[in-house]
């Protein structure tokens, strides 16, 4: 690991190999990435290039075969070996947003956010108020008491974002969060990540296929055959209205 100020994410020489012998597949090879707090990074690449493997590895779900991971300055993985309680660490330092909103179907929008807060030790009443405030902030406060099935795709994704940032994580990991949304709503979600990263000092790594919103990101990377390389610089943003957080 470097001697610079602690990064939100510091992945070093990550390699993930599945199977052995003839069935051996290298899903990720020697990938290193450093993301500073407040930075928003996009990860591009075709299906099967290793993007999701990278995301689940730094998300402490899928251990690497080799390499190291530090989050918020804390070393958590050394090869496949966990250096801390990964589940507790995920709870406090990581926020996840997926292609599908992945909300718990039997909890309302507010409860989906509240449960993340309560799992981290916030008392019921405070968690309830904080969850409601967060949903208001993301423009879905009026849908707080609705079940996920009663929300639109964009509203569900906002609730998922609210849950991801509820515990003020150091790192937000998003896997194609706009895949189920139309263009304008997809862009709104991407801009939401940038705003949250700026305001809350969290870093975000977003896997996306949506090239229309790449200008939102600070840096863009491409993955191919399990290797990571910087992508071409994003085009300059077109002049237009400032990012909107109005409900989808």
């Amino acid at each position, binding site marked *: 690991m470097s001697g610079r100020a602690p990064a939100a994410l510091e992945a070093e020489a990550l390699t993930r190999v599945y199977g052995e012998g003839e069935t051996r597949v290298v899903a990720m090879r020697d990938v290193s990435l450093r993301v500073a707090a407040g930075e928003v990074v996009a990860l591009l690449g075709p299906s099967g290039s290793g993007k999701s493997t990278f995301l*689940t590895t730094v998300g402490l779900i899928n251990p690497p075969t080799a390499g190291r991971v530090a989050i918020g300055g804390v070393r958590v993985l050394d090869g496949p070996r966990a250096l801390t309680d990964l*589940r507790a*660490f*995920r709870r406090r330092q990581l926020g996840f947003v*997926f292609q599908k909103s992945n909300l718990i179907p*039997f*909890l309302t929008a507010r409860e989906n956010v509240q*449960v993340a807060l309560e*799992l*981290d030790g916030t008392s019921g009443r405070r968690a309830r108020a904080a969850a409601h405030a967060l949903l208001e902030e993301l423009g879905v406060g009026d849908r707080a008491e609705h079940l996920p099935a009663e929300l639109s795709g964009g509203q569900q994704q906002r609730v998922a974002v609210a849950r991801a940032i509820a515990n003020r994580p150091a790192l937000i990991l998003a896997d194609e969060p706009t895949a189920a949304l139309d263009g304008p709503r997809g862009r709104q979600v991407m801009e939401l990540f940038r705003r949250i990263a700026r305001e809350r000092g969290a870093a975000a790594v977003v896997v996306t296929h949506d090239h229309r919103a790449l200008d939102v990101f600070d840096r863009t990377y491409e993955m191919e055959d399990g290797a990571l390389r910087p992508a071409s610089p994003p085009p300059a943003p077109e002049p237009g209205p400032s990012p909107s957080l109005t409900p989808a």
Partner: protein
Amino acid sequence: MNLAVRDIRHNAGRFLLTCLGVGLLLMMVMGMGGIYRGIVEDATLLVDRIGADVWVVQRDTRGPFAEQSRVAPSLRDRVATVPGVTAAREFLFHTIQRERRGAPLRLAVVGLSWPDDRGAWGPLLAGRHLAQGHYELIADRSLGLELGEALHLGRETYRVVGITSGMVASGGDGVAFVTVGDARAIQLDLAAEAVRAERAARVARAARDELPAQAPALLERASAPAGELPAVEGRTLTAVLATVSPGRTAAAVRTIASWGDVSAFDAEGQRALLLGGSVAKVRLQIGLFRTLLTVIATIVMALILYTLTLDKLHSIALLKLIGAPNRVILGLILEQALLIGAAGYAVAYAAGSWLFPRFPRRVILAGDDLAQLALIVLAISLVASLLGIAKALRVAPAEALA
């Protein structure tokens, strides 16, 4: 936040149906215990209520309830002379089946020692106790007789003067209390033609003997009613009941048992006879059946909880992904198991309380049995949730991404 309750709220209909199913199954378990308790209560009811300290029956029999017993009426006078005995009563017990309004009517006839015993120890719902030596009857409510109703038994008519509640014999038949004399008349309810034939046979036997030729009056006496002929009369009792001064029961039992022609039991001995015989087999049978139902209930609950867990696997994986510790997952399943168990128990109790009184035999939901079943349900819930918990703990957080 209680995740178990939130999940139940989301699937309220299915949860209610599940509880109803589990509840009806538990009602069966509850009913089995209640049936056994009812059989024990019925078997020992008369012994407990009648208030006798010593039961004197035919030698080497287990009478009067566990098996037939016949003792002479004079036994009462002998028992009354035993030191410590303060009172001795006649007791006659038998079961008859007649027809009433086209339906079978089974009566456990208890003959009371008139006039000392008028059935005052039996709780009355309506009417009064016996007030005359003949043709009056106190009936248990389960017989369906009405106060003031006239009941034809044999050649006599008996009027229902009192209605009791919960007075049944060990076989479950409702008790009809009459005097010993009436009970015997009902028992020896011979048709007129049978009486005539029996007298004719008696006279014919006597005529073949030489004795009537030497004493002609004997032949004339042979045609008299049986009750007037000590040599042929069939007046017997099933038992004599003795009331004994406090602390002298054991001595009285020893004294009476030493006579050689009768056996004597104290009240506890009489209870043991009843519970150690046919009731013991019933107890074993019901106990095994109850155990079987408990195992079935456990398996059914386990399958239900396992299915409920399978439906939630994605949510469980998601909870793990966002950092939920295992105790939260475990609590979710365990709390649902306990809620289903508790709701099932409530359904079982409510349904049983409504249904069991309509059963032909008594089903008693005793406090001890209910508490025991509550513990069994708690154990069932815990055991049944293990399968679901094991499945849930094996779910990987990565499955939330699938």
